[in-house]
């Protein structure tokens, strides 16, 4: 059954139309628009690299870059190990495993907007706020979770971790079932303790998956939008303005039609940085991930 000819083309039509109009052309347009001054009224004008210069000169850009890196870093130390620890522990459970996985996954199906709005309430700064009530039991002072510039980002990361960890747990659990039992048995013959088995068998066996979830997390956190947008709107004092929030503000913050040139220039720069980062990462780690 080769060629297919006309009928293959007909069956491909929906995909070709949808991808052309809503994916391929817009991707090309991004490049074009980053070199133009565009608004909804007049015709676009070519301005060379002016948009890039404008963005790079914007002092807010460097705030946003710093905040995004800070978010990514916090997500790495809080959000990256959490699902791994959970999955390794859950893999030892023999009874009611389904219950454990279902409980771990449940936050993932809560709509993200609901999750953020709910946590916003939990993060209430007053002494009767949910988390502050718990702190009160132990005699601690109430904390301004979202208003205090030094911990607002941590609060955002904790919520984001809660919302996403379950998905990663399921991926790790699937990978854990593929660890050959012989490796554990061999380690046991050598008298390895539980910790040594985890360190020398489990983690090395998971490295392929761990490497992928690592870069996926970096790419994901570099584009964080929902949490800063809904929790803090970038505040206090721009301390939670991320790159994506800045792109959004360039393009859509005013209803008159924003600075589309600057927005596309910045999104293009972000995409290139992420692509280069991923390529470098996979090149560097290729030798360890062969499993």
């Amino acid at each position, binding site marked *: *059954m080769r*060629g297919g000819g006309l009928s293959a083309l007909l069956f491909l039509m929906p995909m070709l139309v949808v991808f052309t*109009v809503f994916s391929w052309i817009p991707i090309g347009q991004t490049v074009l628009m980053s070199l133009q001054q565009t608004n909804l009224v007049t015709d676009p004008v070519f301005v060379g690299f002016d948009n890039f210069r404008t963005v790079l000169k914007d002092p807010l850009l460097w705030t946003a870059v710093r905040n995004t890196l800070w978010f990514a870093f916090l997500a790495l130390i809080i959000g990256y190990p959490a699902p791994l620890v959970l999955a390794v522990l859950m893999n*030892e459970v023999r009874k009611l495993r389904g219950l454990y996985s279902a409980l771990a996954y449940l936050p993932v199906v809560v709509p993200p907007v609901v*999750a953020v709005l709910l946590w916003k309430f939990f993060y209430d700064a007053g002494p009767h706020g949910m988390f502050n009530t718990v702190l009160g039991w132990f005699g601690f002072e109430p904390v301004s979770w979202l208003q205090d510039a030094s911990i607002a980002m941590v609060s955002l990361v904790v919520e984001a971790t809660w919302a996403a960890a379950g998905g990663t747990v*399921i*991926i790790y659990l699937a990978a854990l079932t593929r660890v050959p039992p012989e490796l554990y048995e061999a380690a046991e013959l050598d008298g390895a303790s539980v910790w040594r088995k985890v360190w020398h068998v489990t983690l090395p066996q998971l490295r392929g998956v761990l490497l992928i979830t690592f870069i*996926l997390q970096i790419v994901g956190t570099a584009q964080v939008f929902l949490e800063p947008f809904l929790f803090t709107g970038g505040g206090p004092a721009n301390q939670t303005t991320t790159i994506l929030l800045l792109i959004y503000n360039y393009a859509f913050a005013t209803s008159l039609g924003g600075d589309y040139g600057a927005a596309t220039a910045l999104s293009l720069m972000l995409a290139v940085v992420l692509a280069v980062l991923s390529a470098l990462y996979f090149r560097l780690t290729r030798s360890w991930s062969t499993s």
Partner: protein
Amino acid sequence: MSDRGVLSSYDRKRPGVRRGLRVVNGALLAVLFTAGLGPVLWLAKAAVTPTQDTLRTPLALWPNGFDFANLATAWTRVEIDKYFLNTVLLAAGAWLVQLLVAMTAGFALSVLRPRYRKIVTAVVLATLFVPSVVLLVPLYLTITDLSLINSFWAVWLPAGANAFNILLVQRFLDGLPREVFEAARVDGAGPLRLFWSIVLPMSRPILGVVSVFAVIASWKDFLWPMLVLPDPSVQPLSVRLPALQRFVELDVFLAALAISTLIPVVLFLIFQRLFLNGGALGGAVKG
């Protein structure tokens, strides 16, 4: 598939290990219960608790009084019913478009196999590597040019351009026995017949996976519908809820949040295995 983890069955029989394991498993269950189910249960409780109770004692296990009217108020006076319907319509349309695009494309590429299939597949998969933020502004302007602002099509059509779905369907169809297709062909079935009567019925498992992910993703979506549906009367729950917070009383607002959470949670409970097998996701991540 192994039936053991770090601990061997011999380890598990030792009294010390057994006791330790029981403590660890119990603690783990307590943590998962509190963190995973806790907030959802709390939301369910808060939905039927008067504002003052929720504010004064947010952690009370049992409310002083119930206020079931919250749910009714949210549903009718705050018009959650309308936004709920919008959410359902948006999800249903996005689901249909994604299914249509992914199945026809998967069928053409995997079963009919035109000569240019490799190129097409490559160009589709390449979009997986383009972060969605790159599309945001030009896609918004495309929608403006097509005068689709405030139309559900603005959400439905772009949803179809999902390379991940096509990858999933293509992989699945590549795994089906080709003899069946050849036999059908010999019996005189044309491509349409082959698609409708042979391939579609055989694709039920992958249709289920694509469907559930499509509905959940649409239910979760926020930024895109917010941009292209500025008119509140066509907005889905996710877009409307943050705005409602400003002028609705807390207990009613929490009831609205609970209503928005209900459908995804129910879908999850029904299709648990689809989510938890990790098959679809794990397989894709493994690459």
